[in-house]
């Protein structure tokens, strides 16, 4: 009886009696949801264009952030470092296309997936070799990102909003809008959608797959850099992030592997759900449930809607 009360009643009483705390939790959920969405966005870009499930996206986030911090530590101004980091991501995209993707055309998905795991191992080793394995702090102020916080008084309590988080949400929104515009209005965007639809048909009308892939990986690299800056600013830049980055998977399950809006909504659902569950119900299970809650949500969701939130019902043919 007590247990049922603790599960079904007391969390809600707590929410109603302390609405300011609930708001704070929701805000935290929103912020981590934005970050999940950004990582998922990188996955979606690459999956749409090449059908590759890019496991290395999480590592690319860390790697991009490390490069940025690394250039700055070497004495370069922050903005120059930013540009150079972008260039490195561009070079990485080109290299991946050249060395890996080009040779793996028409291989089964599993092989491509494994190749990206190989890529992430390589990037982990390479990153640690050059920048060292210890966590670093992000050059938040040097990049002109706001610090500090605003305290809002509401419901007889307070809610604290970090300026950085607000900036993160804004940057994420701008990034998504920019990408959407790029893909719907430009020639390359059209070519990319053609490739996403059918590789061979796209080839036959003269679209260069290699070029498109390099561009898409670069776009994913830009998203990774933005994610890395935001994430690094909230905690440290370290390879521990790759485990967190795996949470993009449940996000993708909810949102669908090819849908940009899906990635955002999925990210937010996971972000909110995870924080609420951890704060109000986690205690019953001894805490630390954030590690698996996202996956279990995705699992339950899949059982009822195997095609994802926005997917169409799958009709199997023979």
């Amino acid at each position, binding site marked *: 009886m007590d247990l049922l009360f603790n599960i079904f009643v007391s969390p809600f009483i707590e929410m109603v009696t302390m609405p300011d705390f609930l708001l704070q939790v929701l805000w935290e959920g929103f912020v981590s949801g934005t970050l999940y969405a950004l990582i998922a966005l990188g996955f979606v870009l690459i999956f749409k264009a090449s059908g590759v*499930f890019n496991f290395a996206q999480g590592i690319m986030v860390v790697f991009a952030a490390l490069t940025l911090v690394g250039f700055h530590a070497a004495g370069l101004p922050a903005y120059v470092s930013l540009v150079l980091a972008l260039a490195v991501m561009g070079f990485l995209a080109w290299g991946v296309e050249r*060395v*890996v993707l080009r*040779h*793996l055309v028409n*291989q*089964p*998905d*599993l*092989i491509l*997936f*494994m*190749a990206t*795991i*190989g*890529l*992430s*191992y*390589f*990037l*982990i*080793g*390479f990153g*640690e*070799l050059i920048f060292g*394995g210890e966590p670093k702090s992000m050059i938040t102020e040097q990049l002109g990102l706001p610090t500090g916080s605003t305290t809002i008084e509401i419901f007889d309590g307070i809610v604290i909003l970090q300026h950085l988080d607000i900036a993160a949400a804004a940057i994420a929104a701008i990034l998504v809008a920019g990408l959407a515009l790029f893909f719907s209005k430009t020639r390359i965007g059209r070519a990319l959608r053609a490739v996403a639809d059918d590789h061979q048909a796209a080839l036959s009308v003269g679209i260069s797959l290699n070029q498109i892939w390099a561009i898409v990986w670069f776009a994913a690299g830009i998203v990774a850099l933005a994610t890395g800056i935001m994430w690094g600013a909230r905690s440290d830049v370290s390879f521990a992030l790759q*485990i967190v980055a*795996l949470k993009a*998977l*449940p996000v993708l*399950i909810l949102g669908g*592997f090819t849908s940009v809006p899906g990635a955002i909504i999925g990210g937010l659902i996971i972000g909110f759900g995870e924080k609420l569950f951890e704060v109000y119900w986690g205690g019953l*299970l*001894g*805490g*630390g*449930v954030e*590690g*698996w809650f996202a*996956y*279990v949500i*995705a*699992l339950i969701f*899949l*059982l009822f809607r*195997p095609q994802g939130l926005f997917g169409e019902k799958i009709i*199997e043919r*023979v």
Partner: protein
Amino acid sequence: MFYREAGQYKTSYKADQAIFPIFQDRMAIVFYLLVAFVAIPYFGSDFFITSMMIPFLIFSLAAIGLNILVGYTGQISLGTGAFMGVGAYACYKMTSIFPDVNIIILIISSGIFSAAVGMIFGLPSLRIKGFYLVVTTLAAQFFLEWCFIRVPWLYNYNDSGAIEVPQREALGVIVTGASATPTTRYLIVLAIVVAMTWVASNIIHGRIGRSWMMIRDMDIAAELMGIRPLYAKLSAFAVSSFYCGVAGAMMVFFWLGAAEVESFDVNHSFLILFMVVIGGLGSLVGSFLGAAFIWILPVILRAIPDTIGLDINAATVEHINFMIIGGLIIFFLIVEPHGLARLWALAKQKLRVWPFPY
């Protein structure tokens, strides 16, 4: 020249349905077994046996387990590490609950627990396919990891949160714990791995193995041929997890001696998946080759700077190791996506017709 099947006529379907129909192959197996059971314990150094052979065999068994799921049934799993953990924790609990039962029986029975857990997490595979299944197995991975930390009953409320292997005897010989000799542990691991590989090979070549491969190659056609996906998939999950569980239990009891949750984390799941892919999906030989490659290569790489007198610190070597392994994985996938097992088969084919090219 010696590897010829000419003149070996099969006069019964029984002979032709044998797992090694070629005489030389049967001789080769006998030879490998002799080396493994006699030569290595006799000549191998303690370091070679403890740091190379024992983990190699244990990982081979885990790779066979995962290969049954990924290579033979076509269901991708990233939960191997956790399923190994279930075996290890189950075995640990059983040693404290039944201290008098022979440890080897406990090791084998611990597989039953991981098989049960594997079947529960395999249930979604009936509705979910492909990468979606990766997520459900990751759910298993992280949920079980959490259990290994948050359920203190599993590690007998130790302050350290680790499980430590008690000393146990079998047939009057100390087989686990710090006083067990490497050779004893090696021989037990070897015997279990050989026996379980033989069983795996039997299952794969029979009706059940065929039903797995049918699901893998064309699940719709399999169902229209009368295969029930429920049975085929769940039996694959059960057998696969059983193997992983036994491997996990052996890993702790015969190799590490003590373990906590880090020994079963998601990186181990990746490691085993690498072994399977590099070795060859859907090949038992490949599971051994893959395990040898992924496990022994870093050991050698770590030893290289010392041998040639280079003074590089251990961390750097470790980073370079990561790069080399990552690079080699990509290289292998490009050059031979079917893994080392395919290279092995090609080599045998060449040998068969040597000195002619065809």
